[in-house]
């Protein structure tokens, strides 16, 4: 006796061929039995036949010896029948799979398709007619361009600044795709203040016009500096506009989709006097789309003189010592949890409602690798960082990974528990800092770290890397996109990365028009191991790398140099 399942009939109705209903049927438990199938048209038995025809394809497929095909001749009076419903079954049994067919007057079996575009698709496949639509949007016609910014010498300079992300929207979208514009604006505005008067606008059109008219009336230079992705820009002011773009992909959007012409960035940029990008990589992307005539400057956010940590090497901490820091939020510590597969993780600690944010202490020790990022941003690829770290230091209790998270905990809490439970138990330590870290304590975190980590698939700049490097901390990161501007073998252990394809993040169609990078996990893991080895066993090399990081930053992103570059780009002179 075979199992119960094998006593079931198997088969398939292939379709109608030359007036015969074709298919196959057999019972695997009795492979030598010949089954009889019958055909019902619109509920009436119209014919029957034995399933005994030899079909080589069935033999190849292991349907017994292949003698299980059938072809039941049925008289289909097409003129009279029109659309008929055909059912094929083993005599007095259940219908065979694929047997509920609709036959139209031409003898073709079809499912009921009423939607015209689906029917058109089927027709174009069957009749092999080309019906391809073009997805490429035409080059936008030449449109009125923004007035160029021609700075006159010897008069006052004015900068109207506006960021699409401000304190208010930041609270809503902390860690969202455009939150970095806030930080970029915060870094650049003081620098612009060295070149002229900064006016903060709360509206990109009317208020900008008002200020512009006033400046123009005084005969002064005036430039609108607009921090936003072009598809969100509201252009319309009369003031010459310079956009500041954070971008990390190989090309800028040059297609239309939806009903939003601004999705083609070229349409927007044509109305501006030029663009400032935060990396050479982004500048090349803009230049390729806009042509060499369009003014583009690649300049980093000036971090060197801007934060408590920056500008001089923070004292190094011996791995055996520990550092304390306080934050308003909570601390996740792998030493204090148990992680077992199949066990539901506990809920994240909830902040006390309405009360003042609770300050908690974190104690950090060992060789510390730190990464600061928004887990909501999929480009950060933090899961690779975590698994590579756990794998690299499975037997190393004094290796510590610190994640300082930006944004809500729901983006990392569950997944971190899940990954820790599913990875083999490791002796190293994972600490996640969730919440606000006051500047002084952020500086302590930087000081307590030996390495700063990044495993992104693309970066527009990566402010945290700059902050840590400005305090003399070397890097473990891939050397692509913006990071190519400041990472090198002296200040970093470069993680190997490879080309990858992707869609522009705002493209809802998800068309693969752009490229990013994929991180080689093995290289990420090995680079962390090498970093650990250098820290513990090669102090002179580690020291040299710290100094190299500091040296790179001192020329890369100090106020003076960035201001000079912006001034020369705008044709201005830096005030003494």
């Amino acid at each position, binding site marked *: 006796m075979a199992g119960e399942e094998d006593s079931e009939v198997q088969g398939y109705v292939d379709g109608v061929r030359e007036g015969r209903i074709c298919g196959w049927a057999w019972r695997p438990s009795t492979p030598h039995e010949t089954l009889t199938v019958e055909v019902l048209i619109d509920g009436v038995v119209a014919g029957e036949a034995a399933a005994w025809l030899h079909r080589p394809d069935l033999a190849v497929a292991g349907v017994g010896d292949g003698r299980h095909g059938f072809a039941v001749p049925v008289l289909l009076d097409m003129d009279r029948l029109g659309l008929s419903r055909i059912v094929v079954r083993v005599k007095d049994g259940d219908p065979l799979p694929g047997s509920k067919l609709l036959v139209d007057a031409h003898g073709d079996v*079809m499912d009921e398709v009423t939607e015209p575009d689906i029917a058109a698709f089927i027709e174009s496949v069957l009749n092999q007619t080309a019906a391809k639509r073009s997805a490429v949007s035409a080059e936008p016609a030449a449109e009125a361009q923004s007035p160029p910014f021609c700075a006159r010498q010897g008069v006052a300079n004015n900068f109207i600044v506006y960021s699409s992300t401000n304190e208010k929207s930041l609270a809503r979208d902390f860690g969202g795709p455009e939150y970095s514009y806030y930080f970029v604006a915060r870094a650049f505005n003081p620098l612009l203040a060295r070149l002229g008067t900064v006016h903060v606008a709360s509206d990109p059109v009317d208020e900008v016009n008002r200020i512009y008219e006033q400046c123009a009336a005084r005969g002064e230079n005036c430039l609108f500096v607009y921090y936003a992705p072009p598809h969100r820009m509201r252009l319309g002011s009369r003031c010459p506009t310079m956009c500041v773009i954070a971008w990390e992909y190989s090309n800028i959007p040059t297609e239309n989709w939806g009903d939003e012409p601004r999705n083609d960035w070229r349409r927007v940029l044509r109305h501006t006097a030029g663009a400032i990008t935060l990396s050479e990589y982004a500048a090349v992307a803009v230049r390729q789309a806009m042509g060499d005539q369009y003014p583009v400057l690649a300049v980093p956010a000036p971090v060197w003189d801007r934060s408590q940590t920056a500008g001089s090497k923070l004292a190094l901490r011996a791995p055996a010592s520990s550092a304390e820091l306080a934050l308003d939020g909570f601390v996740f510590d792998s030493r204090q949890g148990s992680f077992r597969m199949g066990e539901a993780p506990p809920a994240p600690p909830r902040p006390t409602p309405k009360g003042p944010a609770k300050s908690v202490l974190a104690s950090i020790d060992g060789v510390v690798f730190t990464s600061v990022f928004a887990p909501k941003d999929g480009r950060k690829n933090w899961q690779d960082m975590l698994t590579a770290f756990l794998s690299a230091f499975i037997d190393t209790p004094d290796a510590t990974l610190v994640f300082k998270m930006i944004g809500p905990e729901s983006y990392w809490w569950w997944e971190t528990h899940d990954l820790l439970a599913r990875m083999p138990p490791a002796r190293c330590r994972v600490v996640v800092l969730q919440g606000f870290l006051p500047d002084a304590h952020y500086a302590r975190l930087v000081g307590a770290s030996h390495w700063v980590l990044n495993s992104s698939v693309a970066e527009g700049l990566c402010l945290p890397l700059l902050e840590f490097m400005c305090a003399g901390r070397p890097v473990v990161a891939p050397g692509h996109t913006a990071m190519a501007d400041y990472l090198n073998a002296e200040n970093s252990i470069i993680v190997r990365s490879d080309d990858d394809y992707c869609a522009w993040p705002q493209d809802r169609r998800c068309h693969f028009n752009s490229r990013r990078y994929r991180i080689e996990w093995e290289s990420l893991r090995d680079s962390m191991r090498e970093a650990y080895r250098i820290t513990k066993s090669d102090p002179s090399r580690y020291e040299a790398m710290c100094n190299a990081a500091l040296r790179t930053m001192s020329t890369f992103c100090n106020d003076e140099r960035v201001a000079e570059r912006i001034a020369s780009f705008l044709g201005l002179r830096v005030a003494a």
Partner: protein
Amino acid sequence: MIVLEHSTFDARAIGGRLGAPDYSYWFVRKAFRPVFERIGIIVPITDPAREVDRIAKNAASYGESSVYFSFSPPHHTMVASVCPTVPVFAWEFDTLPDEPWQNEPRNDWTTVLSQVPAAITHSRFAVQVVRRYLGENYPIWSIPAPMYQSNVRRAVSAKGWQSPTTLTISGFAIDAGAVDLSLFNVDRSRTDGSKAVKALNARVQSRGNKPLRFSLSGVVYTAVFNPVDQRKNWTDLLAAFIWAFRDNPEASLLIKVTHYDAVVGVVPILSDLSKHCDFKCRVLIVHGMIAQEEYDSLVDVTSYAVNVSTGEGQCLPLMEFMSAGRPAVTPLHTAMLDYVSSDNSFVVGSTRKPTSWPHDPRQSISCTQYAINFSQLVQAYRDSFDVAKNQSERYTAMSAAASAAQQRFCSDEVVSSRLREVFEHLGLRPRTNRATFMRRVLSRVAT
């Protein structure tokens, strides 16, 4: 000598099961069958727990020895008590499941493997992994499915550059570059694409003597895979092809989908293709069981076989096409280490990344698989195109080397001689077929 053999999908209609878990074991079993036939009498088993020991006991009472070949992963292998059990399984990961879960001790493969007198897998890679857990002398043989003899006959048609050839497909096929795929875009309702494929499938099944015809020419890359199987990494296969040949109408990718359900098997590919927008290269998708002569014509029109898997137990399609003299575009890891070289293939770099054993419902991250180097894959497509178009001597040499490598790897002789080693190890002597005797043995079992 009685050879009892079983796989999860045995006498079932594989056409209705293509792409289901463990379906490929059926193909391995079928491939081994001619070799087994020369060694003993094959008795297919449908229910190992009920049948194996009973038949073996009966045979023994007539002085006939039996061996049970279980074409299943060890956790699905029943260990017989009357006759030796030999699990035949594919493995492509660097660790072996060595802990039980869900109260099934057999999920710890070392438990099963230490209970059997011998085991068969299909690559040296898998042999090394098993021996790391069960000892350097553990009796396991790497025996691939004997794919060479049945496919080498097509090697005569191997050429890099295809003059225009009409391909006739009586089943489901789509020239994806020539149709509007917007039905499959992510911004459309998911059911539109499924509905279209379902209706299209019904239509082509009914077309009778109106098969679809496609003209192919230039350089044709063929990939045979089940898109549900994540290990096949087919999105890279497709994306790199389009990156390499976006503006090149002389390059074609022929995808033979091995999944029984057209919607499950084809919609994801069309959906992915719809995101790639404009490309001048051709992508042809063929789905379902097609007649042998049509399958042969796919092989004939093929310049290269493509595989970008993250791991392979042996890779039957690659063995099949390389036996037929088609050089490959493939990474060099796991089973491919046994037969791929730069003489017969365009080798794509790969690096390891963590993953789970495929049958582990807990998804513990306990092993590694191989990630493809995407830019090298793009380059390999371009290099191989150039060889096919402009370096026919090099193509011919690679074609011969591909066939020769498979002959060394999986010819009947290699397979039978290794199987003989297994039988010798088990102390079994292959005997001639004694049909009358067998009928008596089996008739007793049946009653």
